[in-house]
């Protein structure tokens, strides 16, 4: 075909906009964040894969280690133990959390705020503390030992009790959110159609909370599977995967076998994570801004039943926390119950263990400050800068991985990666820095999601407006984005601090004598039989985390009242 060439317009230069140095700076920062996260997450995880197919001398042996592992009956038993215990814990925690959340959202019982605060207290303590408390209550010298009818608390019973305690607040928060999202108009519609209460429950409440329940179940399941502190303290001779890794690595110094076990541990957690991820997406899709909140109406019998339930659960929760605190302040359980500060004075200070507490504080502050800056900054670059589509997709993926990786697995990966003689970052090994890094990475996903949610709520055109006004992006970031997102930023800081205070699984392989953390010290003191001192340390951790939460509450109420005047103004 003869196309008249002259009729075509002259070819125009393909125009790619020159990038201003502002954009290039933002892109460079994003590349840096992405590289850093990949380095401190993907690198260690990849090393686990490598080590799992090598023998002790670094020779490639294929799947020989796996074969050997699965041929060992005691190790196979651990898999079964881990899974059934986690399943039972999930089966107990979810109905408890659902009923509790139901009472908080659908009844008119008094004291809701107090119940809510009490329910969240387990988050402030290391999971070890729950195990210690249960030993005090039900152990060989336990006050309520008779209740177990001859069964020993050391073993599955203790693990299940302690895990239910430790996972309860996590499940409650998710279910609570799901129930709060319910649209009140659905209930009004059902009522106008004369649907009875029970039918309303099964046709509106339960389907509405479905995704939240599944998501909470997955979180509880993976928490229990991954947790190392509880089975270590109260598990007795009942083996689970997380403790197996510890035994292989610390006990037998068999790092490669540890890598194999950690991959086995990773599998159920990954599955749970995948299910959870899908559920969360559906949960957020369900949420519409137009929903009218449900307002419960008083109903005597129901409110009383709910109140009774919440009192029982709260007493249970407070009894666990209270026993640890009590143990730390008496001479010797159960023989001499007179008040004493000896566990603090001698057990912690004179024994020199108190340093671990200050290490923990330092680590938690550094994690909160550095972690918040990095996570929020990276989320900002991810959400609010233009271009780099593929890198951003990669970043989003990498940022969700930490939630699927048990702390033990991450910690072991860090040994492999940073202890490797050829790694230029080798110097980080056995420093405070590596503890901060592993903790930030370990708790990255939740913080990242908080930041992204807050940033998504901002108008996307802020950046466009500032570039039209010739204001560089970083100026708008500090002048508008950060102040507006301050509640989320503080929330991330608090979350990182509290978790850094109680974390144990990721750091148990990585501390040096002078960077030992309080949670690790509790573990060691418990092993040495110094229950009183261990309880005292746990009490200190709870106290400091509580202090941070109280400060957070005060700051959000008063300081924010000033910087966020526009919020209250727009409500007026």
């Amino acid at each position: 075909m003869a196309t008249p060439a002259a009729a075509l317009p002259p070819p125009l230069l393909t125009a790619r906009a020159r990038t201003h140095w502002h954009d290039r700076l933002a892109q460079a920062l994003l590349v840096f964040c992405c590289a850093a996260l990949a380095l401190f997450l993907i690198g260690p995880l990849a090393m686990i894969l490598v080590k799992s197919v090598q023998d002790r001398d670094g020779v490639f042996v294929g799947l020989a280690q796996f074969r050997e592992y699965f041929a060992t009956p005691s190790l196979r038993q651990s898999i079964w133990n881990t899974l059934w215990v986690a399943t039972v814990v999930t089966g107990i925690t979810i109905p408890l959390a659902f009923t509790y959340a139901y009472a908080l959202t659908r009844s008119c019982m008094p004291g809701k705020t107090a119940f809510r605060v009490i329910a969240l207290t387990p988050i402030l303590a290391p999971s070890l503390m729950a195990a210690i408390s249960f030993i005090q209550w039900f152990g060989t010298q336990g006050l309520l030992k008779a209740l177990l009818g001859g069964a020993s608390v050391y073993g599955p019973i203790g693990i299940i009790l302690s895990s239910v305690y430790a996972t309860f607040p996590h499940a409650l928060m998710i279910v609570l959110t799901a129930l709060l999202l319910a649209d009140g108009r659905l209930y009004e519609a059902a009522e106008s159609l004369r649907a009875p209460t029970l039918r309303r429950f099964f046709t509106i409440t339960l389907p509405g909370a479905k995704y939240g329940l599944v998501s909470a179940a997955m979180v509880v399941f993976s928490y229990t599977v991954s947790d190392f502190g509880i089975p270590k303290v109260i598990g007795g001779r009942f083996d689970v995967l997380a403790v197996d890794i510890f035994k292989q690595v610390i006990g037998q110094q068999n790092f490669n076998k540890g890598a194999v076990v950690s991959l086995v541990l990773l599998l159920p957690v990954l599955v749970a994570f995948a299910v959870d991820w899908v559920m969360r997406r559906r949960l957020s899709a369900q949420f519409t801004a137009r929903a009218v909140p449900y307002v419960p109406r008083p109903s005597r019998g129901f409110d009383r039943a709910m109140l009774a339930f919440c009192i029982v659960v709260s007493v249970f929760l407070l009894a666990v926390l209270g026993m640890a605190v009590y143990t730390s302040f008496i001479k010797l359980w159960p023989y001499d119950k007179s008040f004493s500060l000896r566990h603090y004075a001698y057990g912690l200070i004179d024994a020199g263990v108190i340093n671990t507490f200050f290490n923990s504080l330092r680590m938690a502050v550094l994690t909160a400050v550095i972690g918040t800056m990095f996570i929020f900054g990276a989320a900002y670059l991810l959400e609010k800068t233009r271009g780099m589509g593929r890198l951003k997709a990669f970043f989003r993926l990498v940022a969700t991985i930490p939630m699927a990786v048990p702390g033990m697995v991450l910690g072991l990966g860090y040994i492999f990666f940073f202890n490797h003689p050829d790694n230029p970052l080798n110097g980080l090994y056995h420093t405070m820095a590596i503890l901060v890094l592993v903790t930030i990475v370990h708790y990255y996903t939740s913080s990242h999601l908080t930041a992204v949610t807050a940033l998504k709520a901002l108008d996307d055109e802020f950046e466009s407006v500032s570039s039209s006004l010739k204001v560089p992006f970083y100026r708008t970031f500090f002048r508008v984005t950060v102040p507006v997102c301050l509640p989320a930023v503080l929330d991330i800081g608090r979350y990182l601090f509290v978790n850094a205070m109680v974390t144990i699984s990721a750091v148990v392989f990585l501390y040096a004598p002078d960077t030992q953390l309080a949670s690790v010290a509790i573990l060691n003191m418990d092993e040495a039989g110094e229950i009183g001192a261990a309880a005292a340390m746990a009490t200190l951790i709870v106290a400091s985390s509580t202090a941070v939460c109280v400060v957070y509450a005060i700051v959000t109420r008063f300081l924010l009242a000033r910087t966020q005047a526009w919020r209250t103004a727009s409500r007026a």
Partner: protein
Amino acid sequence: MTQAGPSFLELTGIRKSFGRFEALQGVSLSVRRGELMVFLGPSGCGKTTLLRIIAGLESQDEGRIVQDGRDISRVPAIRRDYGIVFQSYALFPNLTVDANVAYGLVNRRAARPAIRARVAELLKLVGLPDAGPKFPGQLSGGQQQRIALARAIATSPGLLLLDEPLSALDALERVRLRGEIRALQQRLGVTTIMVTHDQEEALSIADRVVVMNGGRIEQVGTPREVYERPATSFAADFVGKVNVLPAVAEGAGRFRCGSVSLAVGRDDIAAGTRVKLYLRPEEVGVHVNGHSAQGAFAAKVAKVEFLGAFCMIGIALDATDTPLLVASVPRQQVDADCLAPGAAVMISLPAAAMRVL
């Protein structure tokens, strides 16, 4: 109409695709200095993409942009000279109105008293002299958009871009603010491009309208040109209401539509060609009691839709037919002529107002 100056902004062969979707398929356009040009089209027609390309917020795949003699095709947004107002206002919620308006001024290291004076002047200009210490959240939507406008013109940009600025407002506020925008634009003489999907808004405010569809420009013209002489069937359809009559050319300027033969005054179309005739409802003549124009034909009223000042009368060749066309008739005439379903009427279709496309 304002005095149209020489070309201020020149777009040549702008193309843009998002993946496989071609948002702009080679758009060329010239905007005159000081005029208010409106990009009008349905959602997805590419009008907002074109605006964002002019602003440098999107980069075109191909094509050239020259603003005020300077080739800005590859210049990043921050180096271009424009102010912009978005549908969402995009006011910084944590800054007062004063700080919002001063946002671009502060960056230019102007002296503080000068900035304060400029902000006060701008707030007066948009009719909100006392809003300064308030936060955006305390203002109504219309007030917020006025502040966004003040912020956009604070640095006296050469080009003002308005991206659906009125769409988030209620009907009354929309009409009031569009009048204010027009007055302000004429007073400042700033070259302005506004994007909208509302044809009434476009016709009322624009010096010239660009009708866009499917990533292409359908027509560029003054509101009257676009309304009275639509260049394409899309333009006729999208801007205002229109009757579309399928017809066959009979030659000698006559067209047959069903059983009626119409004079259109276009004899350049060969007999037998199938065409479509376009006629605005208000051009349709409806007569009763023997008052009749030349070439009128008998028909029946099928439906009367009351719209306030006007009624839309559905007209069929007999009362049981589906309406062939609609006529817009003043309410007084509807009353005087007793136009009700079933009424016999004479219909005239003025040849001059009929468009063949």
